[in-house]
């Protein structure tokens, strides 16, 4: 029920807002929270408890407890007492079967208690082990919080923002505001964050106020992530001032979780901020002054307060809240009964030190105050206000009051005093172990409301002083945070060539190829693209190849030591194939090396190898100190492979340079102008046809691609390229080789020049040259028209003895062909091997050399 308009209320009665609450239409006002509006509308059950499914109502109204966790617009575990009201919101109960008011699972409260003591899950559901998936499913559905939709996408947009602050103040109470203003007096860069929405828009001279926003933790280097709803601010602060205040602690007595049992701060918020009369007849039980101020507010709001119990003056042995249907009806104090529908109970206030503890502060029990306080702070972190214990009076309530009924130490996890005592009796006599066993402090309140009460109880039961027990570890996040906010915006770096959009617009199927996005093929049938290359003219974007300049007077010396083959005897304008080997002689990468001038080489690498090869070259050159620079120009230069019998004619139409067979020979490199674009043309043939790799400034990519297509070149993608290269038996490093492959086993024994003085991997290659390899990489031709999967087993005498690395159906060869690692004794040309295809063994013949145009006449023509 709403009170008459009051000064200081936060609601704007001229702006009604309505939403649905557990299926009921509820009206409130702008300025309300979803929880306050629902409470004003008479709703009292906000949630069902974790284990016993007991009805729970508002307790703290400050976002600290688990009692108002609900699902809002599909987002689970939202605290509606702090969630601003919004038109049309759909608020639903969670962890309930049927409805909030009537939950079938509440039967566990009636019968389950004695049968479900602490540790019950651990002991009961361990055998038989194979039933665990079933148990887990059942337990998760019976106990828990809101449900996460495993298949949900982003329900809202989340951003991350990096900020710097000279001074970051966490907490906007009087002490925090004063500290912020003092800091602002000596310069700018002061930011204050507070979780209270009412501070939004507050003007503080020279201070940026972020509210509602929560600091989630304090990390090294002054890193403080702040949850501002849909933006996660990652602050780097030179100075952090923590002013998080103190948190009211519940009293531990039977019935302390009944609806209508509230903390004083929660009651005051309902009355003063939202002008709500929270009950008709209230009893106040408190252990400090703060707790009693609520009595005046209640009286002013027209609530009868027949009894106020000061626990510093009276020390009752028995304190029991009783009621019906989960709601408080009376308080029994040492046998004396007081009717009420609101019981305001407080066990004093505990400094909210968690952020300080995370930052490395020392936390100790202050026996004068009866609470834990920070004692030593790390540098750069300060504390002000009641988080330090300032202004708090001594509190010393009973750790647990006697009486009949469930008496909760931890409302999040439904842990009772009985559970705690049992854990201690079972030998969990350290607070950290007891925490894990009972799960006290591990629920949604993060220990805010149960840490101190559990230690008080622990101290009493074990007869160990609180100071000796100490605290459990405070871990971030200090407040619950949405996973989407932590994940932030999804950014997946993708490399695209400068011709990418020409491919996309031509209808290519784009796929990931390592870090690149590349065309798989341009139509349904990659074999059509293969045929075009064999019969007329094709063009493929090979800009992804790594490209390096190696330049300097000692460039050749560097390359001679990096590669197993020779480069010193190469003339300018010529190209040679090269394979890089590791120190252990294993194949690392391959590509071509063109000598452009005496002191300038142009090196290409595999598409994924550019960065690694650059680093490898630089690392070795740092060791050897040659006068040579290595410059990665992969992105600066676009490249295409123009291939097919018509490629020479097409190129000639676009250039004034003479590209005839005589003037531009196989393995020549020439700088020419192609359609107005300066181009380095390399006559090489990865796909086995007459062809030219054209390398040119990347911004001209789309233009030159268009020119080549206009000359009749049919675009072909990665898949046709794979078929074409396989027809030539060309190896793809990383696909047909692995980290164990060497030049001898991979069939490239012609490549290393062991008579060179030195090169990386020389010793290992000398060793490989002498020993008999166990397996060899060979080509194979299937006897039937079946296509083995890449990775299919080579089977010898019933046992796996090798594997297929590549296989494709080739129209030009007329068979299924591939590459495979086979035992050396099966590696001879024409040997029959068996390959497992769809569980059946199929025959194949080892085939040496290229499958197509084995003499290489086409590419040399």
């Amino acid at each position, binding site marked *: 029920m709403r009170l008459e308009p009051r000064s200081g209320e936060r609601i704007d009665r001229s702006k009604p807002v309505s939403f649905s609450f557990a299926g009921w239409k509820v009206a409130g006002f702008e300025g309300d929270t979803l929880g306050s509006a629902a409470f004003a509308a008479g709703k009292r059950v906000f949630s069902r408890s974790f284990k016993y499914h007991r009805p729970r109502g508002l307790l703290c109204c400050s976002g600290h407890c688990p009692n108002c966790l609900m699902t*809002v*617009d599909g987002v689970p575990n*939202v605290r509606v007492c*702090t*969630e*601003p009201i919004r038109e049309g919101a759909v608020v639903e109960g969670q962890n309930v079967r049927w409805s909030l008011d009537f939950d079938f699972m509440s039967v566990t409260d009636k019968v389950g208690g004695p049968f479900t003591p602490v540790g019950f899950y651990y002991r009961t559901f361990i055998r038989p082990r194979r039933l665990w998936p079933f148990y887990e499913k059942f337990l998760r559905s019976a106990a828990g919080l809101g449900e996460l939709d495993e298949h949900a996408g*982003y*329900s*809202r*947009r989340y*951003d991350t*923002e*990096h*900020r*710097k602050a000279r001074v970051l103040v966490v907490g906007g109470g009087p002490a925090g505001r004063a500290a912020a203003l003092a800091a602002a007096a000596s310069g700018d860069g002061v930011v204050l964050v507070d979780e209270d929405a009412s501070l*939004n828009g507050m003007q503080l001279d020279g201070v940026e106020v972020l*509210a509602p926003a929560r600091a989630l933790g304090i990390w090294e280097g002054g890193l403080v992530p702040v*949850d*501002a*709803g*849909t933006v996660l601010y*990652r602050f*780097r602060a030179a100075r952090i001032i923590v002013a998080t205040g103190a948190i009211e602690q519940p009293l531990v007595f039977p019935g302390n979780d009944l609806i209508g049992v509230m903390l004083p701060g929660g009651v005051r918020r309902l009355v003063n901020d939202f002008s709500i009369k929270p009950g008709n007849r209230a009893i106040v039980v408190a252990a400090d002054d703060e707790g009693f101020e609520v009595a005046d507010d209640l009286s002013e709001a027209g609530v009868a307060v027949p009894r106020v119990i000061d626990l510093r003056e009276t020390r009752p042995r028995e304190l029991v809240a009783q009621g019906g249907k989960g709601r408080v009806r009376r308080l029994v104090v040492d046998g004396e009964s007081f009717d009420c529908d609101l019981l305001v109970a407080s066990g004093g206030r505990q400094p909210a030190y968690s952020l300080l503890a995370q930052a490395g502060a020392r936390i100790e029990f202050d026996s004068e105050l009866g609470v834990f306080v920070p004692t030593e702070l790390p540098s750069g972190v300060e504390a002000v206000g009641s988080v330090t214990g300032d202004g708090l009076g001594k509190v010393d309530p009973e750790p647990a009051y006697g009486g009949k009924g469930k008496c909760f130490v931890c409302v999040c996890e439904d842990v009772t005093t009985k559970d705690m005592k049992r854990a201690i009796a079972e030998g969990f006599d350290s607070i950290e172990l007891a925490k894990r066993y009972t799960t006290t402090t591990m629920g949604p309140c993060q220990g805010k409301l149960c840490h101190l009460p559990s230690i008080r109880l622990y101290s009493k039961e074990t007869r160990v002083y609180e100071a000796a027990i100490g605290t459990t570890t405070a871990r971030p996040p200090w407040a619950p945070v949405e996973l989407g906010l932590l994940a932030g*915006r999804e*950014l*997946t*770096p*993708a*490399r*695209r*060539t*400068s011709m*990418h*959009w020409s491919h*996309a617009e031509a209808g290519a199927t784009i796929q990931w190829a390592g870090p690149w996005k590349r065309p798989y093929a341009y139509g349904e049938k990659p074999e059509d693209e293969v045929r075009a290359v064999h019969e007329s003219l094709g063009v493929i974007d090979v800009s992804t190849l790594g490209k390096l300049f190696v*330049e300097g007077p000692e460039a050749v010396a560097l390359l001679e030591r990096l590669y197993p083959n020779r480069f010193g005897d190469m003339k300018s304008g010529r190209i040679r194939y090269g394979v890089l080997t590791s120190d252990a002689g294993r194949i690392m990468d391959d590509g071509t090396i063109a000598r*452009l001038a005496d002191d*300038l080489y142009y090196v290409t690498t595999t598409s994924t190898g550019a960065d690694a090869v650059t680093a490898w070259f630089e690392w070795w050159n740092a060791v050897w100190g040659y006068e040579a*620079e290595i*410059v990665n*120009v*992969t*992105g*600066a*230069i676009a490249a295409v492979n123009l291939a097919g019998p018509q490629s020479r004619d097409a190129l000639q139409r676009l250039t004034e340079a003479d590209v005839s067979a005589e003037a531009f020979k196989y393995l020549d490199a020439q*700088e020419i102008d192609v*359609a*107005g*674009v*300066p*181009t*380095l043309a390399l006559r090489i043939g990865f796909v086995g046809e007459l062809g030219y790799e054209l*390398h040119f*400034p*990347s*911004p*001209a*990519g*789309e*233009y030159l691609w268009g020119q080549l297509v206009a000359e009749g070149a049919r675009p072909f993608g990665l898949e046709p390229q794979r078929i074409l290269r396989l027809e030539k038996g060309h190896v793809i490093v990383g696909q047909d080789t692995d980290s164990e492959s060497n030049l001898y086993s991979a069939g490239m024994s012609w490549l290393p020049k062991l008579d060179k003085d030195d090169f990386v991997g020389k010793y290992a290659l000398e060793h490989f040259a002498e020993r008999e390899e166990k397996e060899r990489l060979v080509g194979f031709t299937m006897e039937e028209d079946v296509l083995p999967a890449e990775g299919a087993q080579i089977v010898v005498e019933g046992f796996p003895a090798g594997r297929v690395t590549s296989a494709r159906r080739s129209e030009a060869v007329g068979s299924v062909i591939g590459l495979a690692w086979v035992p050396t004794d099966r590696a001879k040309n024409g040997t029959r091997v068996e390959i497992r295809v769809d569980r059946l063994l199929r025959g194949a013949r080892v085939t040496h050399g290229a499958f197509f145009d084995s003499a290489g006449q086409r590419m040399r023509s």
Partner: protein
Amino acid sequence: MSRAFLSPSRCDAGTLTSPLRRALEGANSAAVRDLSLEGVVEIRGDSDLVEVAEGEDLVRLSPQRGYIFTDGDPADVAERLRAGGVLAYDATGALAGMAIESEQVVRRLTDLDLDELPTSGPFAHVTAIVRRADDGWVEVYVQQEYGHYVAEAVVDALTGLDTSRGLTRGQTPDVSDPDGSPA
């Protein structure tokens, strides 16, 4: 050997396309500008030997390595520097660049200290050179092959500023597809 195949400025007029063209199509030019075709030269060697001319800005990445951003023809600048004893390469085609008006957008994509520019480090998860222009805008250069992706991220962050502006906890901005382009 002319190395002209490295230089966009040596191409005929009308042959060049920025790697950011599609990503920035329709983007607010008062918020983000494409710098991709402006001249950049990579230098190797003793950068103390580099004489920076009018309209040029040298960003040193290490004593032996840096970039010159130039208003002039980068191929000519590279030749001039080579004559002065420094290895220089036209890097115009290597980098995609964009100038961003809003520091807030930049801060949503990098944790680099914007009070300490120029610098180099991660921007939208890829390595970038970040410097400040005379008009206060922040200039970000990445490998051109990442250009489209980074420009998409910038445009997305700009959109994010609009959708999250003035929102507080509990208010839901429009859902947008985080995957971006299928290509």
